[in-house]
């Protein structure tokens, strides 16, 4: 479980990892990772397939119990938000896009309360902000991959958490959508949110992300993006991950 913050001081770290090892059943996905995501930082998590990126996010959410080491989240559990990959939920579910986005208000409306006028306005605003203003009534199943990703972003906006984690948000969308959504991410970053994004597109990382965690079953580099994404480090990451399967 993610530890809850001590309220006495406000540390600069939003999330601290201390010699953390995470895994599923008998497979260790992340080994001996230490470091911190600073408050208000914008960090890309990159690495080959099977590097443990998704597992790390799930560990921070408290869904994977550490095999060793500790995760300390310096925020209330309320202010963590997680955006799943598209394959992680049921796209064919009969629900309107607006209702799907409205799920993001759960923290404020809970299981029973109705949506008051201001809450409904927030849903509309979020839909407009991601460019889905006219798509509120459309069933989820009829949205394209890009539109669906926009809906996920709108839901995340409604959530309004301090720490936002996104698992491969741009893997199924075209360049224009990526640019639009990236603008939103930058806005959140400017407003002081801690943003952690699992990504594959190194070009995008170099352009927009100040911090990078290069992961390959273990931490290869965790620092400024330029220093992290050197050819040597990338080669090492590929080598480390390949070793797992050869």
């Amino acid at each position: 479980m993610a530890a809850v913050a001590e309220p006495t001081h406000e540390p600069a770290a939003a999330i601290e990892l201390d010699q953390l090892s995470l895994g599923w059943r008998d497979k260790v996905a992340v080994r001996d990772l230490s470091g911190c995501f600073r408050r208000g930082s914008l960090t890309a998590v990159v690495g080959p397939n099977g590097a443990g990126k998704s597992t790390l996010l799930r560990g921070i959410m408290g869904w994977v119990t550490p095999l060793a080491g500790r995760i300390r989240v310096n925020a209330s559990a309320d202010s963590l938000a997680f955006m799943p990959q598209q394959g992680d939920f049921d796209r064919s579910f009969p629900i309107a896009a607006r209702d799907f986005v409205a799920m993001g208000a759960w923290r404020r409306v809970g299981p029973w309360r109705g949506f008051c006028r201001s809450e409904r306005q927030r849903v509309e605003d979020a839909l407009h902000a991601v460019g889905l203003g006219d798509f509120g009534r459309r069933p989820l199943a009829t949205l394209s991959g890009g539109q669906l990703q926009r809906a996920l972003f709108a839901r995340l906006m409604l959530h309004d958490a301090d720490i936002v984690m996104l698992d491969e948000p741009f893997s199924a969308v075209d360049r224009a959508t990526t640019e639009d959504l990236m603008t939103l991410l930058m806005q959140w970053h400017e407003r002081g949110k801690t943003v952690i994004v699992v990504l594959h597109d190194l070009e995008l990382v170099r352009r927009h992300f100040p911090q990078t965690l290069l992961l390959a079953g273990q931490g290869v580099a965790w620092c400024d993006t330029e220093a992290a994404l050197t050819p040597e480090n990338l080669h090492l990451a590929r080598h480390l991950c390949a070793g797992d399967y050869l």
Partner: protein
Amino acid sequence: MNGIELLYMPFAEFGFMRRALAGSVALALAAGPLGVFLILRRMSLMGDAMAHAILPGVAVGFLTAGLSLTAMTIGGMLTGLLVAMLAAGVARLTPQREDASFAAFYLVSLGVGVLLISLRGSNMDLIHVLFGSVLGLDDGALILVSVTASVSLLVLAVIFRPLVMECLDPLFLRSESRMGPVVHALFLLLLVMTLVAGFQVLGTLMVVGIMMLPAAAARFWVVSVAGQMALAAWLGAIASYAGLLFSYYANVPASPAIILCAGIVYFVSVTTGPQGGLWQVARQARARRLRLSRIPERD
């Protein structure tokens, strides 16, 4: 006797027909909405599995106390929940998926149940448990099924929002609250409860029919989850009424007649339903072909 009278005469004349109607409609109103969620969660076969899982408990109740409603109900609830937990446990602890472990447990349950009943009872008792006794509902059974249906609908209303989220995006619900497992467990509890109450009416084998068929049919008429739930409940009620009439005039057993009527509702929906029914799909395909064939003419 005119045509209209034919439609209500059996119920006006015979108390057992009125009881049968009340019991089966109450069951249908609760079972349909549950069925909608089973389909949305891709657990259509789970209802079948659970219905069989209650059989050994019913049998033990029957062996210890004869055809006692209380004993059979408690027994059915216990084994139903036990099988649900065992199957979930196997799915969690081993690589086997939940549907496969459910299938394994329900087949075992069915074997054990039939064996236990035939140890003591006659063939008639077995038939009674397997196919219900909708035409012989006593006060106890009627109260059980209506209370269960009411509770089930109320609880479903209370957990509706998190249940929808659990079906749609379980990871998101998990990130938001710890209600996920509770909601899942409550849903299974409602399922077992309704099936146990329903076996008094339609029998353990047929009760799944009134749960799944109207729910599967409703999908072809309306899009929204709430709409599907309401429609499934009413389609089930209509099938119950029509089935009882059919059984009265054709002199056939009542619970298969009800399921047959639900089956007809389903086939009508599959063929003519406006939401992806066969007729509509064929019409759309024809329209598309027409559109495409016109394009070269324009060029």
